[in-house]
Structure formats: C-alpha cells, structure tokens
C-alpha cells in the first residue's frame, strides 16, 4: 500500500473521551465517506468539537479508535489525509497571509508551496492583502485565510468547526458553494455548526450529538424545521 494511498473512509469507532473525570464522548460511532458531507449538530457541551478533534488526531481517545480504511495503518502518515479548521485560526499574526499559507504548505510537503498559496489566496479573495500581516486581518478575513490553510494540502477529509463564523453573507454563500465543489471532487467533509439552516443547505446527512452520545443519525437531506425538532427532542431527553 502506497503511503499516499487515499483512505476510503474516516471512521470513529466507539470513541470515548474523558477530560479528567468529565466524560466528553461516550461511545461515538461516526463515518465520513468520500463525496459526502456530514453535519454534526447538538447543544453546547454535546461533544461536537471534541469528536472533530479526535478525528483530526488532535485529541487522543480514552477508548475506541479512529480508522482510515485503505490508508497506511500508521496514524502519523494518515494525518496527511485530514484537514482541520477549528475555532482558532492557527495563523501567525507576524507572518503575512501568503507566508502563513506557504508555511502550512511546507509543513504538509506540498510540491510547490508558493504556487498553491497563490491559488488559495485568489480563491478566498485575499490576493490584494496577501502581503499584509495576518495580525491586521478582520475576523472574517482571518477565517477565510484559515479555511484556505485547512485545505492547503488538498486533504481527502476536511473537518470544519463553525466554518461560517465571522463571514459576511457573500463569503458565507461562497463557502457553501466551495463545500459543494469539494464534495463533487470526492472529498469527505464534516461540519460542526449551530446554524441548522446552513447545515440543511449543505449536508447530505446529519449526526445529532447530545451528552457525548450520538442521539440521532438522519440520512438524506432534511428541512431545517425537522432538524430543529429532532434537536429539541434530543436536548429534552
């Protein structure tokens, strides 16, 4: 198996996570497939961010495992197939937007970091400010740069935590289009959000978390009202 072979899925199997004595995840099963977008919904403290960080390899599960079928078993190599955009931007304020992307591309062994950085800056509409320090960026501009950073190595699976945060309507809509393009290109996506309306627009399946457990899994497109109702039920339960 080639070390760069793309995995056929990204799977959390009976994942548990405790922070000290506090359980954050209690036996979560979740699967991402190429070309699919899973929206992870749930109230505050449901474990949405933790499950995303476990899938990204940032948090070690207390029990259970993360699998990459079809990719090398060595999870250090498997990290090459995952992109992650979190609450924080992972940006260095003293570096320019371009330098931030070139740095991220070099970390991931991208063949031509400068060219890739240039492409992403154009896609995110940041080419005019490419040589400005990231520390001078507005929240929305920093978020766009963070989104570019997360997919600098064109990962097979992209995990996004509240990706619409700080984006104006134009760029929020553009993000929806970008996610659709990535799905069509065969990338597997997971989006954590509180915005049920946006989730209903972009996702083709939904996982509702509550109290660190999967409370419901809804395959196929859903109306925002139906999702809201299931969310209310799971929160009440």
């Amino acid at each position, binding site marked *: 198996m080639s070390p760069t072979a793309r995995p056929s899925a990204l799977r959390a199997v009976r994942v548990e996570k405790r922070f000290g004595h506090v359980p954050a995840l209690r036996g979560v099963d979740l699967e991402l497939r190429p070309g699919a977008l899973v929206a992870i919904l749930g109230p505050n403290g449901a474990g949405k961010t933790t499950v995303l*960080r476990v899938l*990204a*390899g*940032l*948090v*070690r599960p207390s029990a259970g495992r993360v699998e990459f079928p079809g990719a090398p078993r060595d999870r*250090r*190599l*498997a*990290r*090459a197939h*995952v*992109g*992650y955009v*979190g*609450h*924080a*931007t*992972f*940006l*260095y*304020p*003293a*570096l320019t937007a371009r*330098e931030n992307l070139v*740095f*991220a591309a*070099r*970390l*991931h*062994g991208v063949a031509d970091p400068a060219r890739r950085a240039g492409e992403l800056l154009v896609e995110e509409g940041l080419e005019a400010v490419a040589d400005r320090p990231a520390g001078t960026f507005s929240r929305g501009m920093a978020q766009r740069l963070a989104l570019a*950073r997360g997919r600098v190595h064109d990962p097979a699976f992209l995990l996004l935590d509240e990706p619409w945060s700080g984006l104006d309507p134009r760029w929020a809509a553009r993000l929806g289009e970008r996610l659709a393009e990535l799905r069509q290109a065969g990338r597997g996506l997971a989006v954590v959000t509180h915005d049920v309306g946006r989730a209903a627009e972009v996702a083709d399946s939904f996982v509702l978390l509550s109290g660190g457990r999967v409370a419901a899994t809804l395959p196929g497109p859903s109306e925002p009202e139906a999702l809201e109702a299931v969310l209310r039920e799971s929160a009440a339960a």
Partner: protein
Amino acid sequence: MNVFRAILWKDLLTEWRRRERVLSMLVFTLLLVVIFHFALPGGAGPANRAAAPGLLWAATLFASILGLGRSLSPELENDALSGLALVPGDRGYVLLGKATATWLILLAVEGVLAGLFLALFEISIGARAGALLAVLGLGTGGIASIGTLLASLSSRSRFGEVLLPLLLFPLLVPILIAAADATAAILAGDPPSSGSVRLLVVIDVVYLVVSFVSFEYVLEE
C-alpha cells in the same frame, strides 16, 4: 525534513519581526552583568575570575529559561500549536525545528553575554574564542532540546511559568557542571577536559532523542 526546515524558517522569521525573545533576553543578561559588577567587590581580582565560568553559565541558564518561556508564545496565539500537531509524519521534526531556532537565538544572546563577562572580568581569550563558542554551542544544545520539550508541556498549564523552571533546572544541572568546568579551563588558557566535552555531547544526544520521541505525545490532548 520539510517540517524541520519550515519550522526553523518560521521561528527565525517571526523572531526577526518581533524581536520579542532576543530583546528580553539581552536586557535581562545586561542587567545580570551590571548586578554582578556591583555585587562582586573584588572587581576583576583572581577570586572573581575563578567564579566567572560558573556565573557565566548561571546567567546563561536564567536567560535560557526566559527565552524558552517565550519560545511557545507564537504557537499559543490562535492555537497554532494544534496546527503543528496536524503535520503528517513524525511530530519530532516540529521539536527539532523549534529547538534549532531556539539554539541559534540563545547562542546569539550568549555570544553577547560572554563578551560582557570577558570585559567585566578583564579576561582575554584571543584564539580560544572558537573553543569557548564550541562549549557554548554544546551546552546550549541540551538546554534547547529538553527546554523546548518542557516548554511545550508546560505551555498549556495554568502554572506554566512556574512549572518550566521547576522541571527544567534539575535536568540542566549536569550541563551546568560540565559546561562550567570546560569554560573554566578555556578561560585559564587550557584546553577543556575531554571528560567535560564528552559529558556535554552525551547529554545533548540523550536529551535530543528523548525530546524527539516524546514530542509525538506532547502535542496531543
């Protein structure tokens, strides 16, 4: 090695732009030299000259703690440390890049510190400057590798600023002993003892290997 080079480039560029670590360490070392000047009544007398190597390394260790404490600050803004944890392959190369950048920065500050010490104690080393630089480099190698590991470990703790020196100082004692011994020999006009140099090399290798291997787990929650 891509990761190593990328981190080294990023850390040096960030330091060049912010000059946060270098300036704070330089000011601190300058203050230490001034304090030593007033605290040692004999000036450049023989007793003080004999103490000079130990004082130089004590000052180096204090300045290193200051620099190491700040070595992770660019990574803590915007949780960039998590971004580094996403690198494919061995995360040890992240440590290697950061430790090498710290080593270079510490060495630059130590060069200034050593110059001030030599002036304060009126010691001329002439052709032995290269040997002194080599001992500084060897001693700082161990400080930079194990210090970067412990700075990363303590960076996520509420008590990080206290934790780092508490964890680090006991591990730096062997470096302090060997480096002060080698420095004393150089300042006295003799070659450093092979025992001291060997001990420094062994400590550097052990600390580097331990830090490289452990870093995989340090970056995970």
